[in-house]
């Protein structure tokens, strides 16, 4: 083997190993990003659950009933004051 081809091979080897180091680094960086995104996803899911829970706590029928009756002075309309409309009827 001539000297020149030996040098080329060594240079290629060096280049490849540097690229390997680089891609390994990239992989780890991306992995950390993925981890963060997944954590964020989990946190958002938890928050969504929490908000749903809060919504049902606030929309509790007993609460709505109490507020409507006491602070808004509302009452159930009697059947005499209710008019029913049915679709398609005149």
């Amino acid at each position, binding site marked *: 083997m001539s000297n020149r081809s030996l040098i080329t091979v060594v240079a290629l080897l060096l280049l490849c190993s540097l690229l390997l180091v680089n891609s390994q680094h990239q992989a780890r960086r991306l*992995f950390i990003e993925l*981890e963060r995104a997944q954590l964020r996803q989990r946190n958002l899911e*938890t928050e969504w*659950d929490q908000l749903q829970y809060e919504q049902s*706590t606030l929309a*509790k*029928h007993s609460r709505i009933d109490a507020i409507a009756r006491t602070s808004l002075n509302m009452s*159930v309309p009697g059947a005499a004051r209710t008019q*029913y409309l049915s679709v398609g009827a005149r």
Partner: protein
Amino acid sequence: MMRAPTRKAAARGLAFSASPVLAVKLPAWRSRLTLFLLFGAFVAVAVRAFWLQAMSTDFLQRQGAYRYARTLEIPAVRGKITDRFGEVMASSLPVKAIAAVPEEVEADQNKLRQLAQLLEMPLPELKKKLDSDRSFVYLKRQVEEKTAEQIAALDIKGIQTQKEYKRYYPSGQTAAHVLGFTNVEDIGQEGIERAQQKLLGGVTGSRRVIKDNIGRVIEDIGYIREPQDGTDLALSIDGKIQYIAFTELQKAVEQHHAKAGAIVVLDVKTGEVLAMANLPTYNPNTRQGLTGAQLRNRVMTDTYEPGSTLKPFTVALALERGMVTPTTVLDTPPKLSIGPASIGDSHGHAATMSVAQIIQQSSNVGTVRMAMKCEPREMWDMFTSVGFGQVPRSGFPGEVAGRLRPYKTWRPIEQATMSYGHGISVSLIQVARAYMIFARNGEMIPLSFLKLSQPPVPQRVISDRTAQQMRSMMEKVVGPGGTAPLAQVRGYRVAGKTGTAHKLEGGRYVNKYVASFVGFAPISDPRIIIAVMVDEPTAGGHFGGQVAAPVFSSVAASALRAMNVPPDASVENVIMPTQMIPESM
């Protein structure tokens, strides 16, 4: 003095090659020994290398991995339970468990006092826990995130927090018996939480990772098992009707100073349970000091003697067999003797009554007259085909079959009393479901606590004609001259049957009552069945028509409005009689 001549010789410049030392012949074994030792050393290195590489490689690799690889647990979240409209009824939210490694705990009095305060635990108790011999103790579980942060801020060595989940029930005591609850390990203990544990409970996942020196995850290695979150469950329960049913039942139980009460609302078209409530109840969010009475599910797991609410089945059988028609007039003496026993009514009535009047005024004598014309086997078949003595198979834990003895063992008096609901025990849900045959034109369908996408396949029990006749007779029960005018609903035609039964205590009937009412509405096209039971009412009457019927009326009115069911009667349909007819027991 020995050295002197040698030194002299060197000084004299003796040539190296002439040195006499060179001429000395070493013994041959010495070089061989050196060679052997060197060779031996190489062999030792080779053996060692072989040992490490081939023999103990697993152990070493494990030790290596132990130093950089970690297995992380990925917790799965328990599924949510929602009502039929997607409103959350039970949800798991993250909380913290506060734990300690007693050996490592180092804290001064002041910090311990603060910790005790945050844990809402007396200081001596905390100290006792920290004094334990165990290597790990939970100080308190399911601590709210905020409190856990404050505890972490105290920065006490040996105290750690762990992530866990707590189950929250926004509807509180209203739907306690439907939902049930879970324990601290997130495993369902009662109700739907228990029945659907497999579906709701997730599978914890795990992953193998490499962590760097500051604990960040750098890379996944080896296996990853994805956590499987529990499935969300949509119940058949309608949150609004559940609330209405619960509050109306509560009012009745308070008003009549009753020991307990139960109510169940069924969807006639699909067999779904729209509401189920029990009193006394409990708050599933804070379960300290729960008593058995609070936990009891009187709809599903308790049986009682239903009394007159069973009469319609006897009458339906007589109609179905063509023995009578609604207008057939029967002799109804005040007392009827069957063997050594006699059966009577608690109120006077005409000496002859039509079948319709027998139902309307809930006459024991009249019902028994019809029952005695039937074969025991026919009656048994009727009761069995509407579900008495059978487990309802709704998938709810702890549901009971009740007691319906085989017809071969019936004595005539027993057949007679069973015809009006004594000597047989049933659960409230069984009675409610049995009324399907009247509300659904003679068909039965299975029950469901889960929201259904399509209605189940019905099974015919009695003919359409019999069901229609029963319906119009049962509508008269709530009219003037019936036992339950208080069950009337403005704008809707309703039908039902009252029940008032003496309670059995130690094998004898005592003067304690179970008042019940089972009915359905609207008559023109039934949508809901409501069964109400009030246990031991002690104030303001004890008849089903006085105690349970008003609950039916208000729940039916609100539920039908909530379901957007158009009225099938004018709003002036409610007629209150001046005098109520007490029913027979």
